[in-house]
């Protein structure tokens, strides 16, 4: 995303577009990445409830995937999971 100049942004740091935090990709903050084991997961949705960044994507009451563009790797989902289905795996630089 190209950053705008001072003449093209609202004054005072105001944000005029509600919910635009989604445009700010925080995935790069992560050092550990949550990896979900589909076999173990019971879709209890506790991880979805606890995730502070709304990064557990649910469709029709089932967990579909994890939004890695916004997940900061806090690990709360992994701690809350009652069946140990989410492991935190260290991020490695992809070649």
């Amino acid at each position, binding site marked *: 995303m190209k950053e705008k100049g001072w003449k093209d*942004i609202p004054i*005072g*740091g105001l944000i*005029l577009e509600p919910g635009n935090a989604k445009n700010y990709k925080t995935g790069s903050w992560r050092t550990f990445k949550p990896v979900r084991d589909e076999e173990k997961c019971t879709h209890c949705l506790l991880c979805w409830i606890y995730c502070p960044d709304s990064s557990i994507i649910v469709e029709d009451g089932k967990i579909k995937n994890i939004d890695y563009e916004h997940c900061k790797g806090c690990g709360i989902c992994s701690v809350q999971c009652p069946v140990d289905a989410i492991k935190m795996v260290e991020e490695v630089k992809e070649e």
Partner: protein
Amino acid sequence: MARVVGLTGDEVAAEAIRQINPDVIAAYPITPQTEIVQRLSQFVADGLISAEMVRVESEHSAMSACVGASASGARAMTATSANGLALMWEIVYIAASLRLPIVMPVVNRALSGPINIHCDHSDSMGARDSGWIQLYSENCQEIYDNLIQAVVIAENKEVLLPVMVTLDGFVLSHAMERVEILEDEEVKNFVGEYKNPHSLLDLNNPVTYGPLDLYDYYFEHKRQQVEAMEKALRVIQGVGKQFAKISGRSYGLIEEYRLEDAELVVIALGSTAGTIKEAVDELREEGVKAGLLKIRCFRPFPGREINEALKKVEAVAILDRSASFGAEGGPVFLEVRSSLFEKTERIPIINYIYGLGGRDIKVEEIKGVYQTLQRIARTKRVEKRVDYLGVRE
């Protein structure tokens, strides 16, 4: 039709605020500003203004309440002095950064310590980089006029910055003077209605105030503030002319007093300008070409206007009612000297620190300053760049 009344500086400030009739007043009393808040409380209790009076527990809360009120679309005002201004410091910067047109009388008082309640400019001068516009008042009439104009300046769409209107503690705040008061209706029409285009209470157009602003955009927002200050220079002059239409009193960024042919010029701001006028008149009687340049608007700084006004001058003295510890002189001196550096011909320029903690400044002392300027004009030599007026050795 204007009414002519006798009012103290604090009383006339309260009278101006009554006529402006802001939506929210959040203030905490502090000497010598107390009478402003006391009067406003009385006005609210008597039903003379419809403002919501928020009796806060500190100045930090006063400015915080004003920020919230202003962001939600209300016209918000407060008033303070010295340590009160120091206590609201954090939010003073935030008000300017969020571009909220809050108007605040600052009754100039020396900052502690040791504790002192009398006049100097250490409080408002400390806030000169906070992003607030600063208008200094010479007398009670100017306090009234500046406050009414401040609302229109602050809320101008090109500006949207908060404004401090300063008045010298006790010297003006507690001194009764003859003041012309406009009709309520005239003031009401002049200030108009405040419409915040981005109100927090506008549910159809939601807005976020004060989000995290890091290295990617903070700099751009500061650049905008600089631009708004620059634009304010023209707006302040325009509002000063408009104000003349209802009051007969016109205002610019500076006031030139017997300056056209002046060879020796003193530059000052606040009530001391009145004392200097007295000295200038006496010296003119004696044939000395003395003049005064009064700075009304210190932020934004009218460097160009000051340069233009000092055309035929032979020597200049700048009076500072605050010390800038460790600097090369007082804040007014530093600013003026920097502007005058643009001139190809160097004017000899000296600085006097005076009146700290309410120390009186007398006509005789100012005449002494002009005598020093005469010597400098004659010898072309500055012996002491920064000196002190009225301090005991």
